[in-house]
């Protein structure tokens, strides 16, 4: 296993799967401005996907393209964290998931912008600006809805409680991460947890939401060992044309 390739898949798949989920909202958001903003987030994430997966394919060296990786891998070859693949739920859950991920994504990209790998550095430098904006927006929404009406507060608390067990996987390190950290390519995700905790505690306090105290977390996405049942359904839709008409140019 090539650790760099594995790392790039993890990074790119997070963007792809979350970008796809967010794009499911298009045309159905609670207000027009949110519809536009969600499409914007999805577009940024898909743009980043293209860059990460193109590099992943290049490192792999088997002549595959970013599209091949996105549309022709089966679920067990995906390396995104489970948090990104859970269904959208209501708007509150979608935005809570976005915030929890954005806050991690920002810290990770800030680290990657210092990477010893020039391509990684370049992609991260571009992405970090987009994601800084994503955090501002998702944070504002979480605070606004947490500290809104009784109903919006209740829904946001439910969203946080539902998503919390998926948080820990973002910071779980393994041998791939160790190798990346050693080579100065990527920060060790575990090393980002304290900064993430501090930022999230601050946000949830402002949102008047209670942070669950359990540290238990699901895993199996970033190593592909065991995704949720949801990913397969997403892929049947996302990959359908490529699978049904192999070799066609679109």
């Amino acid at each position: 296993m090539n650790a760099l390739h594995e790392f790039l898949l993890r990074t790119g798949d997070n963007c792809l799967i979350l970008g796809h989920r967010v794009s499911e909202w298009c045309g159905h958001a609670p207000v027009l401005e949110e519809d536009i903003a969600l499409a914007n987030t999805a577009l940024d994430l898909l743009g980043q996907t293209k860059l990460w997966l193109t590099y992943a394919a290049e490192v792999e060296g088997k002549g595959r393209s970013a599209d091949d990786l996105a549309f022709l891998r089966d679920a067990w070859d995906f390396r995104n964290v489970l948090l990104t693949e859970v269904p959208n739920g209501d708007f509150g859950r979608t935005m809570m998931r976005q915030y929890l991920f954005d806050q991690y994504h920002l810290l990770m990209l800030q680290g990657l912008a210092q990477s010893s790998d020039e391509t990684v550095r370049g992609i991260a430098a571009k992405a970090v600006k987009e994601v800084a904006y994503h955090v501002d927006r998702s944070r504002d929404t979480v605070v606004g809805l947490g500290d809104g009406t009784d109903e919006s507060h209740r829904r946001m608390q439910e969203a946080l409680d539902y998503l919390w067990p998926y948080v820990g996987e973002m910071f779980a390190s393994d041998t791939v991460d160790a190798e990346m950290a050693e080579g100065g390519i990527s920060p060790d995700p575990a090393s980002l947890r304290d900064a993430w905790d501090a930022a999230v505690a601050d946000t949830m306090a402002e949102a008047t939401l209670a942070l669950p105290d359990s540290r238990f977390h699901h895993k199996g996405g970033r190593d592909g060992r065991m995704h949720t049942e949801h990913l397969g359904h997403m892929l049947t839709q996302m990959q359908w044309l490529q699978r049904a008409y192999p070799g066609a140019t679109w």
Partner: protein
Amino acid sequence: MYAQMVKSTGQGVKTREEMSPEEAHFQDRVDADEKIEARDWMPEGYRKTLIRQIGQHAHSEIVGQLPEGNWITRAPTLDRKMILLAKVQDEAGHGLYLYCAAETLGVSRDDLTEQLLSGRMKYSSIFNYPTLTWADIGAVGWLVDGAAIMNQVPLQRTSYGPYSRAMIRICKEESFHQRQGYDIMMKMAQGTEAQKRMAQDALNRFWYPSLMMFGPSDAESVHSAQSMAWKIKIDTNDGLRQKFVDQTVPQAEYLGLTIPDETLKWNEDKGGYDFAEPDWTEFFDVLKGNGPCNHDRLKARQDAWTDGQWVRDGLLAHARKKAARKVAAE
């Protein structure tokens, strides 16, 4: 064309003698191609007609997100997914510009939205047709945005300033919409047998509904006559339809696709094509709510609105609390 059969005063165009001094002055300004601004005096009929027209146009942009949005999660490549998402996002933006233009006439966006959701206001008939294959996404960009452009380009010169400025912004984006659609059609028409079949099938299904977008002939319509005198309608429906056909036929030929009209023929004398009228009974059925997707489209918008109520309420409550806290701290 996103606004169809917009009613005006229904009384026909007033002669100079019938006009009040204000009306005559207003008409002079319109005739001199001056822009009318929100604060200027305007006839009540002008204001009401514009609200109907801009509102219907805005609703069309919003409902128009749905048939294309239907394929975002199934787009075949990363690039196609991004292009389509950006395109549909533009349409939402167009809706926003237009609702803002309508607001300058004294009607709120919420008010217009309610009229859409209750069925009192319409949106373009075209969005009541389904998108069944990926080629439909090509056909929508090529034909539907193509027809919209036909109507929107002249509307950049419309007499109402805020509407005209919204149109100028919108037109900048529309040509990208049509190009991406045509580009999809190209790939499909030059692709595998299955892709060619999808492309032809898409053209077969979207041709007549696209012609319907311009609305039935309005040569005799008193509504259109008034709207044209006020320059909130620039060309006749038949004129625009002819232009659209003349532009589109060579594009279809270039793709190697057949327009589903056996009577289609170049007419040297008029310098344009003769072509078959769409089935206007079908058009009126669709307007009445009996198109293939009317129910689902409206339901999707109603659900988005109802399901989003708690979000709008929550954000509003938060904004109020924040403002109150600020006052208390001062």
